[in-house]
């Protein structure tokens, strides 16, 4: 396998709260290769979001090492290694859809002509080309989240970090966005880190599923999915799919068993 994109060795993060230390992450070992689609699943407090935030240099690990593209996370961030999609679309109400997608490009200092070209391209990628001049409130929740994905893709980061991006959407919209995300991934070949609460979502999307458990936040199972890269929605009824989902559920239960 080629050089890892994200590599964590004995990674730990301890918050010091008023009522004692909280082990958000403990002894996390994980290697993610280029082009992988990795889902992080587990109950609240298992550290899945914290791990993603460490990769994005939004949190500082207190133990172990973490490298992104072979360099420390904050250096990787300066090199525009990743785009981050948050749970809420977080579009600025005073900017149009195009204006929102253009925002990171403005901040990073792309030339004006290139900005327009990139905005056009990524809006097309998420199928929002007709909505460039609309304001966010004129779009549905699902469309807003697609716009926020376009925004994360605009500056050609190799890694896409997604923190429960579809968590607030209803199941029908979610299925559709999952399908589209897979297509997007196939077309762009990005490495994707994806935090979710949903077992079907994790199994459907991922090449690798990281099962985590809380107190302390740690990895209990890493499942390499045998499913093919080409995945119609119907694959969720196949025996392979159900078997992986079962193993994820077992992992979650085991993680819970010794903590509660």
């Amino acid at each position, binding site marked *: 396998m080629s050089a890892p994109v994200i590599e964590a060795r004995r990674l730990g993060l301890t918050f010091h709260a008023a009522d004692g230390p909280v082990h958000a992450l403990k002894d996390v070992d994980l290697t993610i290769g280029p082009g992988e689609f990795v889902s992080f699943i587990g109950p609240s407090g298992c550290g899945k979001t914290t791990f993603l935030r460490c990769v994005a240099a939004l949190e500082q690990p207190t133990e172990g090492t973490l490298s992104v593209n072979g360099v420390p996370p904050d250096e990787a961030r300066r090199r525009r290694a990743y785009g981050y999609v*948050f749970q809420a679309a977080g579009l600025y109400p005073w900017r149009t859809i195009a204006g929102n997608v253009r925002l990171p490009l403005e901040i990073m200092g792309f030339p004006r002509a290139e900005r327009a070209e990139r905005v056009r391209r990524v809006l097309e990628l998420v199928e929002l080309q007709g909505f460039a001049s609309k304001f966010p409130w004129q779009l549905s929740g699902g469309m807003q989240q697609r716009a926020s994905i376009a925004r994360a893709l605009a500056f050609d980061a190799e890694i896409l970090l997604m923190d429960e991006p579809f968590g607030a959407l209803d199941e029908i919209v979610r299925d559709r966005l999952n399908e589209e995300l897979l297509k997007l991934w196939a077309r762009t070949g990005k490495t994707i880190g994806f935090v979710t609460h949903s077992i079907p979502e994790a199994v459907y999307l991922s090449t690798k599923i990281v099962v985590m458990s809380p107190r302390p936040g740690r990895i209990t199972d890493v499942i390499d999915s045998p499913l093919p890269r080409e995945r119609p929605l119907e694959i969720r009824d196949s025996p392979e799919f159900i078997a992986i989902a079962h193993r994820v559920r077992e992992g979650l239960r085991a993680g819970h068993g010794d903590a509660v």
Partner: protein
Amino acid sequence: MRHVLPVLAVVAAIIVAWYGAAAWMNSQWTLDQAAREGRELTIVDIVNDTMVQERPKLPAPHQVGAELWKTVVATRPGSKRSLLWHGWVTLSATAAGFGIGTVAGLLLAVGIVHSRAMDLSVMPWAVASQTIPVLAIAPMVIVVLNSVGVSGLLPKAVIAGWLSFFPVVVGMVKGLRAPEPMQLDQMATWNASRGQLFWKLRLPASMPWLFASLKVAVAAALVGTIVGELPAGATSGLGARLLSGSYYGQTVQIWAALVAAAVLAAGLVALVAATERLVLGRMGMRR
């Protein structure tokens, strides 16, 4: 337009109550006069007299209206007897003070949001500044500035600014802190500088708060200016009209100045509101 009828109804009710109060409050003087002259008066005589007194306790609406007509329309606008001229004197000082207050408030808010030291130190002083009665500080400002040769518009504008900076500070500190942690994290993932964070996120996000504060600030600036016109025998401005009216018992003049001040305040607030609609509309944030 369906709001017109209720509004007119309220105005009509106020005018009726005003007439009633005028008749009641002014009747004592009428009765005293009649008793002194040994005349008998009917109810109609009393009521009629309360509407036309020279120095009523409470002038009737039409008396105030006539005074306004005389001093606004029938007097040459440049004349010292013109309420338009006095209104302009007050308006110009109010606008200058509003400008001073807004700029000072914005600068302080930006400092408070960006510096922890300022956050901890400035706010208590800002609050303390507002607990000092403006009536007490106004003469001192006038006298001190006059002693260094500054008089006219500026001292009044300083007092107006003194009152109007505060709502701007409070509103803008809130507004500049309005972005959620997620939005700040988002900017961090793009390595945005503090300047970019301010111009692209904090400032636009604070606009609704800014306009809410400006409406309060502009009204406060008018109050500050009028109070600034009261001391030291000022001869121009609505405040001076109020003062000279009370010296000479010219209640009609006082009420005309009060109405003028109220109209001015309403106009200024409406102007800020119109700017708000325009700006927020262009930003796509009209609700």
